[in-house]
């Protein structure tokens, strides 16, 4: 009797294990953050509305990339949709992991995404950038903004910082008078993605870029790059000790605790800063676009986008869900769940803009339209790593800023094969 029970259980378990992954009509890979939570809630609504079973698989940021890349490389078809950070798009698209959406738009009688989407939000979903076919649709409208404590800045003699010189002037005064407990500026100095993400807007605001316009030359070690680096190191000098290891959480905590007066940050932190249970700075933080250097400031765009996996066995269902989830109605619901929108109609919706918690929307919309994507290269993760190491060394003071630029130039040339 016991043996029979054992065999029956073993067979039942095996059958369940084999079929477990196949119960859903659509499986979506998302990050375990507010962006993923928003899509999880939308998926539940979709299931109720359409009767389609949608399974959400959540993973930490870096693991979403890994799992998506593995699924793509093995053509496993385990995920139908991936919610991607936009710098990943060239990697996924150029390695054949993403489905070209053109045919699906045509069969749905659509030319493509409607014009209510912000143009910069749509541009990143085409590969090559802004010219190729659509390989995804934008879902979360992230772009960096400049966050600052207007009262403290005013006390330091700067009403509203327009340039990096303004930030340095006020920041230095605030750090000098802070007694080692309060700082004028704080940034993500952690090696790799964090330090690169917080350096790029400064780099661009001095007219520098990683590549020339036609992507035939690496252009890091230039006079413009040196000017940007000079400002970056000056900002380091007015930032808290240990900023070399800071990531988003440390920067967010410093601002929310009222221990730092300004930083470049992402809009998903607004909800934290305006939440009395998490922040001492409710209503005190002002938002602006990125300050100018020698050129107008430009944010780094960091949209979360929905792409259909090329190996998916449910592509039509995945396309239908993607179009539904990025519709104006759903993007508005997503905004109320804390995710920045990607559509003009939602950014300007009086029902939202009249609320205090959405007061940053006009600035964010302007920041997205003035944003720059990270260099669109399939080897971007490797480029970012190499550039991030040299920036980290400069921030830590183990090499000079000039050496950091020179080493970065050489490293990126080696990775890309460009000169």
């Amino acid at each position: 009797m016991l043996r029979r029970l054992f065999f029956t259980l073993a067979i039942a378990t095996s059958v369940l294990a084999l079929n477990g992954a196949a119960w859903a009509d659509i499986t979506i890979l998302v990050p375990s953050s507010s962006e993923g939570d928003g899509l999880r809630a939308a998926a539940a609504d979709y299931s109720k509305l359409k009767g389609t079973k949608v399974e959400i698989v959540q993973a930490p940021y870096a693991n979403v990339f890994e799992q998506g890349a593995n699924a793509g490389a093995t053509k496993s078809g385990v995920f139908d949709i991936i919610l991607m950070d936009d710098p990943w798009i060239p990697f996924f698209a150029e390695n054949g992991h993403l489905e070209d959406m053109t045919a699906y738009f045509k069969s749905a009688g659509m030319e493509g995404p409607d014009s209510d989407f912000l143009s910069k939000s749509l541009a990143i979903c085409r590969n090559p950038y802004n010219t190729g076919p659509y390989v995804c649709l934008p879902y979360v409208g992230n772009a960096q903004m400049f966050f600052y404590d207007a009262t403290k800045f005013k006390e330091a003699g700067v009403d509203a910082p327009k340039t990096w010189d303004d930030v340095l002037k006020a920041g230095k005064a605030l750090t000098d008078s802070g007694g080692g407990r309060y700082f004028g500026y704080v940034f993500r100095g952690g090696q790799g993605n964090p330090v690169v993400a917080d350096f790029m807007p400064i780099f661009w605001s001095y007219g520098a870029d990683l590549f020339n316009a036609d992507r035939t030359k690496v252009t890091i070690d230039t006079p413009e790059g040196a000017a940007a680096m000079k400002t970056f190191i000056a900002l380091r000098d007015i930032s808290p000790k240990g900023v070399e290891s800071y990531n988003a959480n440390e920067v967010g905590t410093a601002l929310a605790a009222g221990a730092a007066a300004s930083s470049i940050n992402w809009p998903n932190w607004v909800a934290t800063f305006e939440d009395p249970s998490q922040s001492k700075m409710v209503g005190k933080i002002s938002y602006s676009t990125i300050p100018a250097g020698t050129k107008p400031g430009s944010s780094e765009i960091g949209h979360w986008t929905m792409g259909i996996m090329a190996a998916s066995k449910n592509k039509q269902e995945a396309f239908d869900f993607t179009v539904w989830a990025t519709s104006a109605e759903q993007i508005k619901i997503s905004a109320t769940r804390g995710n920045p929108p990607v559509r003009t109609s939602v950014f300007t919706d009086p029902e939202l803009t009249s609320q205090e918690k959405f007061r940053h929307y006009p600035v964010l919309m302007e920041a997205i339209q003035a944003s720059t994507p990270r260099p669109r290269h399939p080897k971007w993760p490797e480029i970012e790593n190499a550039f991030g190491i040299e920036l980290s060394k400069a921030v830590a003071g183990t090499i000079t800023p000039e050496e950091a630029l020179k080493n970065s130039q050489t490293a990126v040339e080696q990775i890309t094969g460009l000169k």
Partner: protein
Amino acid sequence: MFTSANAPLTAPVRPGGTLERWAERHLRILMLAPTMLILLGLTIFPSIYMFYAAVHKISPNPDVPWDFVGPGNFLRLLSDQQFHVALLNTSVFTVSAVTAEFLLGLGLALLLDKYVRRLTFLKTVLMIPMMLPPIAVAITWKIIYEPQFGVLNEIMFRLGLPAQAWAGDASLAMFSIIVADVWQWTPFMFLLMLAGLASLPVEPYEAAELDGASSWRQFWDLTVPFLKPVIAIALLLRVMDALRLFDLVFILTGGGPADRTKVLSLYIYQVAYRFADIGYAAAISLFVLFVTIVLSTWFMKRMRLAE
């Protein structure tokens, strides 16, 4: 040929159908089969696959065929500066952390074994760090080291000492990682040393006492030689584990600042999963495996355990 008077002349007829009788006869194999299959799938196959991958250039694009590069990936190790940095950092970490853990573990074991033998509660408390998941240890130390709001700098501040960027300062980051590792793994050394001390024979010590040998002489001439096999095993296990350090570095520093804490495991992870270069990652992994085997063999021979 003899048969027992009680033995049946024919095999016993068992109830059930053919399949059930067959299953009954092969029950042991059937019970072991799932484990063997899992073992084959999770260890043997990946090992063979790793060797195969290490001699190929593997594109993340599934439509691009694998390109045989022979020893190419291994030759890349010679000119890869990031690999050299990771190798150096791993060596510094392994030597420093394991040495500190051994000395502290042995010291604590001698202290507790001789003087406070009855304090089992204290021994249990000392073992808690070892029982914690590595990720929990890393997060705990991240909070302790946090420059602005961390416990350590708060103490420094209250004592009027300058705050330090424990995980953020290029000259302190590796030290901070070593301290966290020593905190977690000293109890492991302590436990093994304590077990070793408990198994020592009493007679040689009594004889030494009669001969008037000092405590130091007893320790050096009796305890250390007797403990040698335990010390060898403890050091070997810790060295092998230290070479695979990942969690602490991943959470505390991400390999920075300035590449000062980039270790081999982290670099392999980056190459495999961030740069999608599986072939090269396999080659580095094989190198680490080779180093571990060579070190272990040399170590075992040195400690005269080989025979």
